[in-house]
């Protein structure tokens, strides 16, 4: 008989290894792989390799790398992986805004093992790279169709890198028109923080809009700051809350009327693939995170790609190299682009992300992509309705309105009633074999927040099990809160003290730095 997943709490127990740091395993002389010496023929041809490095850059001492034999290295990393939660062992509904959908394994096999992909190198002559260049070219056409944009760049390696590229495009565009006074961008408090941070890094002043009582960006506030100093608006929609801004067209039109551009952060476009396009909403620049919406793994599992798409009038500014189709039908890389903002990444970006995206789209087709969005939104409606019935959970803003693909929930009521808040629940959640959840981006506006996004990949059983665990967590909070306070109980590490993370005197980013601090070596 099948289990009733709404009442099934897994008796999860994570492995706990008292594992050393890899540096502590080091035994002088041990080797994992014996690298063969260069052949005489190679030596004759190129000479000693070290001499090819300028003397000023050569190390005088060998780096203090750990010396560990192969089996022990393997053992080390397998143990660490056993102590880690994984999207392959449990449904990852917890990372709201991250779009942790299932990435079909065939994509991984192709990218990790297929010699036609694995063995090519970006320094090869382009006539020997025709396969991957064609995939770039075709993927661009597919994304143009999905978004309504006219051209894409796959160079940015992350969403924030894409956003930075976008800010650079905005500047290049205005400068090309001799319009050099625009030094401000406008974003909203529930847009992804990189919509503020990346333009700030690119030198723009940042104006952030608060939400009004209904949970929408305050349009009156927007109009009060929109001016001839505004270079662009950088916004996410639906926002972090999962709420779709019904005035989005007004925001875009007002920006355009002021001569500003409109940038749409579509890193997570899961709620509208095949349903609505950025072009029809009037946007000039967008970015998709291929590692979210288009099923490229992420969260430490794979290199990303923040694909930047633009309308035709901005295409001349896209970063180089451009992948082009020549008149003879062959594909090539073009770097002679005088208006381009230049390089934003080495070579031509993370080709693996583009290849996976191409595979994902081709497997699903137009109808399948739309169905992914529909299922993602449907799953979210189901989860939201169930979660809202759990004692202690509330949903801020826009009462009675639907969210798209994610929801920012709040444990404010539970915190007031029991003292148990979102950080406590997140720790205890892991005891049930589910990943600790994403609370909120900064700054925290919704108190005691947590954000869930069930994507299209998860079944009703997955959702029922997830809701069941939250129901049990709520019961614990009200009836036996000590279980939660002392959690986690079944994981590799126990409760960590967080103070060191904020204490720059104690925080060490590398082992060598830690050694210097603590052992004076």
């Amino acid at each position, binding site marked *: 008989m099948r289990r009733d997943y709404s009442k099934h709490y897994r008796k999860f127990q994570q492995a706990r290894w008292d594992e050393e740091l890899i540096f502590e395993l080091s035994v002088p002389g041990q080797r994992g792989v014996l690298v063969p010496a260069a052949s005489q023929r190679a030596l004759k041809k190129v000479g000693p390799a070290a001499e090819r490095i300028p003397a000023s850059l050569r190390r005088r001492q060998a780096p203090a790398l750990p010396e560990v034999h192969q089996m022990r290295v393997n053992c080390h990393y397998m143990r660490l992986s056993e102590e880690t939660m994984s999207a392959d062992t449990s449904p990852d509904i917890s990372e709201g805004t991250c779009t942790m959908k299932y990435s079909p394994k065939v994509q991984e096999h192709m990218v990790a093992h297929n010699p036609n992909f694995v063995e090519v190198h970006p320094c090869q002559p382009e006539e020997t790279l025709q396969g991957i260049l064609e995939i770039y070219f075709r993927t661009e056409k597919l994304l143009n169709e999905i978004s309504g944009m006219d051209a894409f760049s796959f160079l940015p390696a992350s969403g924030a890198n894409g956003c930075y590229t976008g800010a650079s495009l905005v500047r290049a565009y205005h400068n090309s028109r001799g319009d050099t006074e625009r030094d401000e961008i406008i974003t909203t408090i529930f847009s992804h923080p990189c919509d503020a941070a990346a333009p700030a890094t690119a030198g723009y002043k940042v104006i952030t809009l608060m939400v009004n009582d209904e949970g929408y960006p305050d349009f009156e506030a927007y109009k009060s700051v929109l001016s001839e100093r505004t270079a662009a608006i950088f916004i996410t929609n639906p926002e972090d809350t999962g709420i779709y801004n019904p005035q989005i067209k007004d925001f875009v039109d007002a920006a355009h009327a002021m001569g500003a551009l409109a940038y749409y952060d579509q890193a997570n476009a899961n709620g509208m693939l095949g349903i609505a396009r950025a072009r029809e909403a009037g946007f000039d620049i967008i970015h998709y995170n291929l590692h979210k919406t288009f099923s490229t793994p992420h969260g430490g599992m794979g290199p990303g790609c923040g694909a930047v798409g633009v309308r035709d009038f901005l295409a001349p500014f896209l970063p180089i190299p451009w992948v082009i189709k020549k008149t003879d039908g062959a594909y090539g890389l073009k770097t002679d682009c005088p208006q381009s903002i230049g390089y934003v990444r080495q070579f031509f970006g993370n080709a693996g992300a583009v290849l996976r995206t191409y595979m994902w789209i081709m497997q699903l087709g137009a109808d399948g992509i739309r169905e992914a969005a529909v299922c993602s939104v449907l799953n979210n409606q189901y989860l939201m309705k169930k979660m809202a019935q759990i004692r202690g959970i509330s949903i801020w803003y826009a009462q009675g309105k639907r969210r798209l693909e994610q929801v920012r929930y709040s444990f404010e009521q539970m915190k007031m009633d029991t*003292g148990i808040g979102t950080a406590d629940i997140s720790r205890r959640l892991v005891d049930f074999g589910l990943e600790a959840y994403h609370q909120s981006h900064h700054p925290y506006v919704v108190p005691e927040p947590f954000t869930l996004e069930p994507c299209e990949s998860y079944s009703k059983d997955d959702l029922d099990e997830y809701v069941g665990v939250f129901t049990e967590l709520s019961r614990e909070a009200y009836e036996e809160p000590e279980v939660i306070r002392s959690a986690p109980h079944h994981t590799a590490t126990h409760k960590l003290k*967080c103070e060191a993370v904020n204490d720059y005197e104690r925080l060490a980013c590398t082992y060598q730095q830690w050694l210097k601090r603590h052992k004076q070596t």
Partner: protein
Amino acid sequence: MKKVGLIINPVAGIGGRAGLKGSDDPQLVAQAMRDGFHSEAAARMWIALERLGSLMRQCLFLSADGPMGGDLLAEMGLPYQSVYQPPVTTTAADTMLTARRLHNAGAELIIFAGGDGTARDLCAAVGCSLPVLGIPAGVKIHSGVFAITPLAGGEILRLWVSGGVHTMDAEVMDIDEAAFIRGEVRAKLYGYCRIPMAGALTQGAKTGAYSEEEALSGIAQEIVESMRPDTLYIISSGSTLASVMDALELPNTLLGVDAVMNKQLLKDDANEKDLLKLLCGCPAKIVVTAIGGQGHIFGRGNQPISPRVICTVGKENILVAATKQKLIGLRKGFVADTGSQELDALLAGYYRVITGYQEYMPFRCTAVGDAEERS
């Protein structure tokens, strides 16, 4: 072991039960006690301490004897180090004396049950020299040093004992009881205390990508860089703007208004007349922040910036600065309560608030009448 100082104001809240507006007047309190009213301060402190659970054993309590703390700790079976033996009838002076002794005895935090009056006493006695945490038990709770509920206070205490909680400055406010009895609400800023940064609005240290200090230094940098030559800057009260004076390496009047030009201090703790005199013929800017949970940008702690001063400087020359976190806490926007209803109405509208270095947030101000309607 964490050294926790504890103070209970044994008359806190009595006035409220008796239908008075506060418990600051000893004669009124004595009458209320004779009428059979009693304070719930100890009971509220009990709720907070109970939340500590097993962490109680990691605390060394210091307190005054009797109803100021000793009785409660004894009843809860918690040993404590006595710092003071108060008289039978306690007054504000006993609170202040106990607070000083707790500080001298090495308390790392003072938890107190009381209201705004008690908070003022603590502020006067120890200021920002150690963190304090208020358990709301008084009639008047306008200060930012109080937890929302005794339970929430217990939770903050628990976090603080477990370690890793940052601290921040919070306003100590009180209203003029005599005026309030006449029906006038006049909240006044009395000073600042350090509090653990773990309230429902601040979310605590665990989420801390930013510290309050970093946000304030960004604001200060922005204001200082934007300063124009030969322009008078009227720097209002509050700890947000103290960071501006710090960045200028000028002495600051926390509860008063300072006048700065060309990065030099022209007049500290200026009054209205000083400002009007300085304003003769030169361009000027008024730099204000929002005070307290009600969001006043005028009329709290900066009365020298009078309607005449504001009209001379002009609305377009008002700079407002506040951290994003503070704005998030002000759900109803800013309030202007200058004393002139006409001017208050004129000051309504959106301000481009400085929230960090080259960071801004448009935020609405309403005239005081409208704000009361909405609250």
